[in-house]
């Protein structure tokens, strides 16, 4: 079976600065894989390269065997790789429900004439869209806020909504960029359970960037460590925790 995601030799240069240098990673279906590293290590740059927001300067990215490096972001998202952002990027003036509906854009009936005439097919597609939105609201416990504008939600709720919004677009690979940032310990635990739930019950694989080591060590199947744009180590949580190089990178030389 081919890997879900196979990255090799990924490099990103900004002028003379090499932000990402020869990064490689692979993940299989229904795995939770984390990328960790000190601040400024290039984790988010890797994400931006994978999700098509940057055009990588070198290397290959294969998603289900298909080369996707250099494709524009929306095409990669349509293939089933959807990401969240380090800073919440919701449609703040729109309701929670509408946020979820926009995410389903490619699944809905966008035929111009059908929408103008409200054909049965159009109505059905809209109804299904609402049902899917409902399912995800239930899952992230935001049902009672469905008609609230997204900008008025509490921070933790906005984080959950962002994940729900990604899931509503039916991805195969969910890429989370520091989803626990700014959450309290309770909310982080809840996030932990949510991510596992998504993998077990909705069949999605998760690529995670995170600083919260308890979360990362608890749920990851495999961890990649990057430092100064270069891959430093990889392995299971246990292996990474005991790797001398990793400890040095995080804590400095003894």
């Amino acid at each position, binding site marked *: 079976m081919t890997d879900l995601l196979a990255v090799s030799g990924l490099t990103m240069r900004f002028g003379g600065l090499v932000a990402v240098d020869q990064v490689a990673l692979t993940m299989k279906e229904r795995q939770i894989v984390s990328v960790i590293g000190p601040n400024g290590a290039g984790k988010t740059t890797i994400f931006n390269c994978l999700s098509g927001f940057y055009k990588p300067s070198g290397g290959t990215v294969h998603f289900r065997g298909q080369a996707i490096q250099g494709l524009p972001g929306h095409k990669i998202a349509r293939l089933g790789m959807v990401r*969240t952002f380090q800073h919440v990027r919701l*449609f703040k003036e729109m309701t929670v429900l*509408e946020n979820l509906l*926009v995410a389903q854009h490619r699944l809905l009936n966008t035929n111009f004439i059908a929408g103008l005439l409200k054909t049965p097919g159009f109505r059905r597609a809209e109804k299904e869209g*609402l049902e899917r939105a409902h399912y995800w609201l239930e899952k992230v416990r935001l*049902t009672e806020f469905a008609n609230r504008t997204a900008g008025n939600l509490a921070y933790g709720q906005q984080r959950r909504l962002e994940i729900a919004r990604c899931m509503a677009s039916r991805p195969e690979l969910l890429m989370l960029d520091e989803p626990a940032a700014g959450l309290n310990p309770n909310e982080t635990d809840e996030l932990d359970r949510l991510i596992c739930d998504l993998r077990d019950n909705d069949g999605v694989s998760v690529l995670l960037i995170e600083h919260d080591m308890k979360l990362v060590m608890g749920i990851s199947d495999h961890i990649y460590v990057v430092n100064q744009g270069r891959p430093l180590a990889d392995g299971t949580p246990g292996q990474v925790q005991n790797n001398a190089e990793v400890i040095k990178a995080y804590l400095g030389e003894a």
Partner: protein
Amino acid sequence: MNNIKSALIAAGLFLILAGWLMGFRLETAGTRLVVGNRLDTAWEWLALGGGLVFLAQLFHAQVTRPFKLLAERGGSFALPAPEEKPMLFRLLTLLVLAGLIIWPFIGSRGAVDLATLTLIYVMLGLGLNVVVGLAGLLDLGYVAFYAVGAYSYALLNAYLGFDFWTCLPIAGGLAALFGFLLGFPVLRLRGDYLAIVTLGFGEIIRILLNNMTELTGGPNGIAGIPKPTLFGLAFERKGDSLFHEFFNISYNSGYKVIFLYLLALGLVVFTIFIINRLLRMPLGRAWEALREDEIACRSLGLNPTLIKLTAFTIGAAFAGFAGSFFAARQGFISPESFVFIESAIILAIVVLGGMGSQIGVVLAAIVMTILPELTREFNEYRMLLFGLLMVLMMIWRPQGLLPMHRPHMEMKS
């Protein structure tokens, strides 16, 4: 006490500055310049001005208070979306529509004619509202699509003899095509850059029309564009298949005015209907989302360029419809009718009405077309008054005349 002091200083400053400007004059005495004293004639004005400045400074707080209150109170008001009160909304729509249909038979001919012009601007405002208010793309050359619509009808009629009803959809389609062609390369740009390119496009179209003399008649324009017909019945005095002969009534040129008004009304209703549907379609939601966060849109698989392009194209199509109607109503068009100020007025209508608010746009279009007519007696001060009004408006109600809640999708429990 403090007030008096600052008021005195302000008045003193005014006297010094104005006294210098108004009280002395350079006069030529032979080959030399002499400073002439005019204080004896100017002192009345100086005293009046000084007094005014003094009083204005003294009562500054009292004068601005009501305006401040107005601004604060008006801040949170917005019309409810139709979904929030469906029955009331339906009733109101019916009443207003009935009123608008009956009105031309009562109103004076001049008023009906002015109303027709207003309706054209309503349509243009609604069309531009899709681009600026909904999709958030600043388009300063909207009048170009209006021109394309108008010239489509005029030229197709002049060369191929097509009538209004054939040309109306063609004009809309051609304007949409131009919107598409322009949008394709430029919609990668954002904000100010897009505004400049569209501004340039508007001018290009006008200059092109001006210079392609063999085809468009250049600055002389195209005259004798026929009026629309009612199922083939013309509203002229002489000719074949005439309206008044068919119904066996005596000829009255007022019929034509009323017919044009009703036709414009129909077009506006059509526009409102389409845009309302669009707002509730995935496409409408995507416009909204794109205006808020383009990056998030891209990450969810929405193609920003394509979505912007649809907004641009649809907006242009409405301008095309309006343009062909305009050509039919005027009977004569020239590049003069499609100058930049038209774009600016349409944009002002959208901003004045409250971005994205359809009722606001309608109201603003009425204000913007009727106000210049009402203030005609002020002659050269007309535009000054107009500008002043806009400035005051933006200070007190930056959110527009009648902001409106967007129709939200609601979850029914």
